[in-house]
């Protein structure tokens, strides 16, 4: 049980950290790259909100990725034959 908690905690930390650069990738989707400078205050606000949405989407995506992999593996395992009495 303790191992499971430890593994989930590590995954949580990894997801939180990995989402930081992935949020920037999300920004790149909208064309906001390093080259884009001189943004107005309103646009800066907009960029911040997009980054935040991207961050949470990445965090969620990492868990969805894990769940899908786990689900498929679980379903693919052959059912163990019942023990013969």
């Amino acid at each position, binding site marked *: 049980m303790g191992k499971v908690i430890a593994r989930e905690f590590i995954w949580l930390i990894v997801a939180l950290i990995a989402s930081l650069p992935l949020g920037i990738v*999300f920004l790149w*989707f*909208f064309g906001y790259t390093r080259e884009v400078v001189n943004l107005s205050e309103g646009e800066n606000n907009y960029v911040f909100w*997009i980054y935040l*949405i*991207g961050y949470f*989407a*990445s965090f*969620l*995506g*990492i868990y*969805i*990725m*894990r*769940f*899908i*992999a786990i689900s*498929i*593996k679980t*379903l*693919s*395992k*052959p059912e163990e034959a019942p023990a013969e009495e």
Partner: protein
Amino acid sequence: MHNIKHYINLISTCFIFLFLLTGNGSVWSQAKPKKVIELSPNEVQRINDSIQLATKERLEMIKEKEVRVEDKVVMELNRNRFNTLSRKWWNMPTETDQKKIDKGRYSRYQRPEGIDELLSSPGRIHRHRKEIRNEQNIVVFGWHPYWAGEAFRNYNFNLLTHVAYYAYELNPFTGGYQNFEAIHDFKTSELIPMAHNDSCKVLLSLSCHRAESSEIFFTGTAKVQLNLIDSLIAVLESAGGDGVEINFEEVPYEFKPDFQDFIRELSFRLREHNPNYTIAMTLPLDDTDKVYDLGFLQNWVDIFIIAGFNFHLRPSGVTKGSVAPLFNDEAAIRGSYLSYTQVSNLDSILRSPGTIRSVELLHNETYMNKLLDTLNAYIKASRIENLDYNRYDMGDVLRIIQLYEPLLNNPKVRQSLRRTACKVELAKYYQPEERVNFFLFAPEWDTVPIYEFDVFNGLGGIISKTDTVVDDIVKAIERYTRAIGATHANSLVLGLPYYGAVWQTRGGSEFMGYMPYAQIRNLIRNGEATVRYDKRRHTMIATVSDSIGAYQEIFFDNSTSLSLKIDMALDRKLGGVAVWALSYDHGYNELWSTLEEQVAARTEWNPSTEQMGLFKIDKSNKIHYTIAYQMKRNSNLIFATLVFITIFMTIGFIFSLLDWRVRDVMFYSGAFRIFYLTIFTVLVLVLGTWLGLFQNRIAAFLIGLTLGGILIWVATVLVTRRHEKLP
């Protein structure tokens, strides 16, 4: 033997061919002699007779044709008659009437005659005591037509919330504008900075009039509409404008869906560019075909302006009458009590035709005592017998002077009176047109407070005839309030005219066009016109006369009638008022005062505080954000998030494939393989189309299908071989 038969056949074929080639057997026919027919004289005569008969028949035929032409004329007449009757039957205008309607409808958007001369005279700046506040949530909208030039320098922007610059005249073929000069002025004039200084928004009117233009615009390619939207954004951006007023007239019913789609796209794109842009739209007086579906449009439009003018234009023709009638059912049976307050000198007050109800002298007590002494001295000097009055009551003294003509005309008395400024309330009574004898009590008098003092000294009277008013402002407001729902009535704004409709009365009645308010006022001031008040419709009627007599009638609105209409609009919970057009009162201030009194200084009873407070309109948010609007607005964000999540899901799937058991399950079944490859093919197609690899979709589909099939076959063969090799 066989060879001989063959040669015979060949030779006979050649002969037949030669025969056909030489002209269908004509070689022999030429050699035949021609047969000559000899005619007897009787037979010649018979032939001649038959020829003559044929000529006669032809002549008869021609005559018959002439009869047919006559028939045609009769038929044409009948057809015209039928058209006329059916137009009457269906309440449709004749061609002549249609031309008059078009003149009435579209001459409003043209430069009025004499406007340049009017605007070249010095204007007057209105000084206000109260201004419209943001918390009132009220809309005071005014159009500034491009031909008004620099007249905006006299506008009181503190009493306006929105000014619409008229106009971006749409070129329906391209989506661009037709009047380059007007757009140039919009971009460069000081209208926008001046308005912004007083927190007034400046919109750009987008005008597309006549059904033909709408037809061209809506049947054009999507590029035309996109071009228009881009062009509008560019003009607004360059000028620093705050939105658009959509001024489309006569959109045909069949283009209703196109019109709605266009409004949605326009509104969306404008707000996408700048969420603070205001979108206004002018609604026609009567939308019989329900082209303007307010239930749909209210999601995309902030302000709807009911064109509360041009009521004289009916569906079947132009009728002489009020431009903006306000209905009052009881006007015919009541008498009228006209009251007006005037600031003037005592001399002119004592000569006015009305009854003096109260006088307030605008001087100090010492001056009044001196004046009383002087006037009393003159009364005494006039030696009127048996005179009994209160020497210290100014009212009594003035009444005596007014009644006794030698005193009133005494130059010295006049001099003293002329020097004295005063504020006076005058009153005049008018009997009802249709008197009704009431048994127990008579109805109260209607009260008509008049504001424009100098004009109404010569008020010709009040009329209150009861004839049929087909449509009026109240009905129009009720129609649109029903259409939009009572809760959203505050999005409606009542449009009111600053102009009058001119009718020629000499030699028959004919509609002549429109005249700005200031020009009508000038006519009255110069004594060329007399004024009457139509109490039934709350409209002013100016009669213009020359040495022969009256020759023109102008139906217009002044501060009195406009005040009542503004009152009515705000009492019915509308969002405000609009005026066409702002420069039309150039040189006069009373209409600005009306806006100030009726809107900015308007108060209402506040039941919670039990006090009179500032008039406010309950309006939480001007834009109604629906789910559809939010989805469209954030479609990029939603799409990007979904793509992001899909990428993670795919990565998850690929991770799961690292396990051999998963691979075995996933690729063993043929149905699974077909499923993956179909998805793969669809993906390739979608990506290819997105990247522009496939120009022809059907060809791309067929290529995809063929490739998919080959891939499935190859994959199936490979997997089967692999399985066969397995132990």
